[in-house]
């Protein structure tokens, strides 16, 4: 028999022949899966079509945050622009304040008289008539130091003990005690409002550059201000005006009038140190030393810190710390060596 015949034979006999599976095999095939755990099956069946309706806000969030975020981006861009403009404005304001004080400090001349000017503009400061009492004229000191000196002069002269000593040391200066008593109420009433009055001090610097006589202008300004009854400032004006160092040109070399303004007291050397912080001379840095030494490096150093100071001032302005923006420290210690005596005073600004 040929092999082809065998092939045909088997094909004919077996083609289409069905072999039904055994019942146990059918039972096994009917199960979902041979190795499916019943617990798995329970959860699969129970959770297969289970849905949890999401909250309505979810679609809105999806649209706003992911599908169509362009309007939001525009809003962000607008906010960025507004923020940048606000920062720029603050920097300009801070820079204007700072440059005004910088120019004030760097023009040279009578810092003490300017300090008096600032004091006149500042309600807490005393008029220039107190300058001889403090007996210090520092030149070429930057604005914060000038302000500190002005304030320290203020406090030193308002202190009765200091005034008394000054009277003893400089008996010829009869004008010193009087203004100090006259302006003490002003200082005492306005000192608690330091943050509010600090900008006035900074404003007061600029007009002073054109004033020929700070003392008179200060007094004139004070004349317009409410002063306590019975306290007249005008009588002291003729005595004080000559005592204050006359206004010098800006280019003039700074003269540190350590001696009292009265030329007759020249042999006495008065050394005034103004320090930041409490009265710890060895630990606290000297803010301004009004001795017969040149303090010119201080402005040069500040020039290097110009940008940083500007940013700090802007930051402080943002936070509403106007007084701090002007560079005034919290506490200032004033030490004056008056003819062998050491007068120390700590001022809480």
């Amino acid at each position, binding site marked *: 028999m040929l092999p082809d015949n065998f092939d045909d034979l088997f094909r004919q006999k077996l083609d289409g022949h069905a072999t039904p599976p055994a019942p146990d095999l059918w039972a096994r095939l009917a199960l979902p899966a041979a190795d499916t*755990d*019943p*617990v*798995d*099956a*329970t*959860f*699969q*069946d*129970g*959770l297969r*079509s*289970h*849905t*949890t*309706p*999401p*909250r309505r806000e*979810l*679609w809105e*969030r*999806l*649209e706003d*945050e*992911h*599908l*169509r975020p362009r309007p939001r981006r525009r809003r962000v861009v607008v906010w960025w622009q507004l923020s940048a403009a606000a920062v720029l404005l603050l920097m300009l304001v801070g820079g204007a304040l700072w440059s005004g004080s910088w120019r004030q400090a760097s023009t040279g001349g009578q810092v003490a008289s300017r300090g008096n000017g600032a004091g006149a503009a500042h309600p807490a400061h005393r008029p220039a008539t107190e300058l001889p009492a403090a007996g210090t004229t520092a030149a070429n000191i930057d604005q914060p130091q000038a302000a500190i000196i002005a304030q320290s002069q203020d406090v030193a002269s308002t202190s009765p003990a200091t005034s008394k000593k000054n009277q003893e040391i400089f008996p010829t200066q009869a004008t010193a005690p009087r203004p100090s008593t006259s302006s003490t109420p002003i200082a005492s009433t306005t000192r608690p409002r330091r943050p509010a009055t600090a900008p006035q001090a900074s404003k007061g610097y600029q007009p002073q550059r054109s004033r020929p006589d700070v003392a008179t202008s200060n007094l004139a300004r004070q004349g317009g201000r409410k002063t306590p009854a019975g306290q007249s400032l005008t009588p002291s004006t003729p005595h004080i005006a000559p005592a204050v160092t006359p206004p010098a040109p800006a280019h003039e070399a700074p003269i540190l009038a350590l001696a009292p303004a009265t030329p007759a007291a020249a042999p006495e050397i008065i050394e005034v140190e103004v320090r930041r912080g409490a009265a710890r001379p060895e630990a606290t840095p000297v803010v301004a030393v009004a001795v017969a030494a040149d303090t010119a490096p201080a402005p040069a150093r500040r020039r290097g810190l110009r940008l940083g100071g500007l940013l700090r001032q802007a930051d402080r302005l943002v936070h509403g710390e106007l007084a701090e923006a002007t560079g005034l420290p919290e506490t200032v210690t004033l030490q004056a060596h008056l003819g062998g005596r050491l007068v120390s005073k700590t001022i809480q600004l």
Partner: protein
Amino acid sequence: MTSDADLIAACLRGDPRAQRQLYNQFAGLMLTVCRRYLRRQEDAEEALLLGFAKVFRALPTFRQDGSFEGWVRRIMVNEALMELRRREPLHLSFEDFAQPENLASTPATADTQLQAEELMALLQELPVGYRTVFNLYALEGYSHAEIAEALGISEGTSKSQLSKARAMLQRRLNGGGRPAERAAVPMYNF
């Protein structure tokens, strides 16, 4: 009623109505998926949100040769796992009672009558390691190798976690008390 292909094409054109329809079609189902992995509802919603954002972003890469629902579900599972890592540090725990050889294999009978929310509650009471492995293996169909790769664990750990999860669920389904194994010993953080 549009097919998935038409819906996808419309979404690719940026049609907002098609996007909304796709979301409505799958959001409920996928939120259940996310809730199975994450205990807190807000975490599950966050995973759903991020998952749908990924779905719409990756829609151009979807090849039409497979199930669209399966593709979406896989994205959601991945997103839920990522959210799980952020929200619940995954502790894989071991208990003495739950050795695989001690497990009873009694079939659940009346348990199948449980409502879906009760099953969800049972799942959410599992320790996070048990829950994650059980979800991935029993409900999503991942293999142990895939689970090990996704979670950064070994296949043996995956099998062990699955066995313990099943044992705990079975005890709960059979009316067992709250298991003492809730005080689990953390073994892996990932």
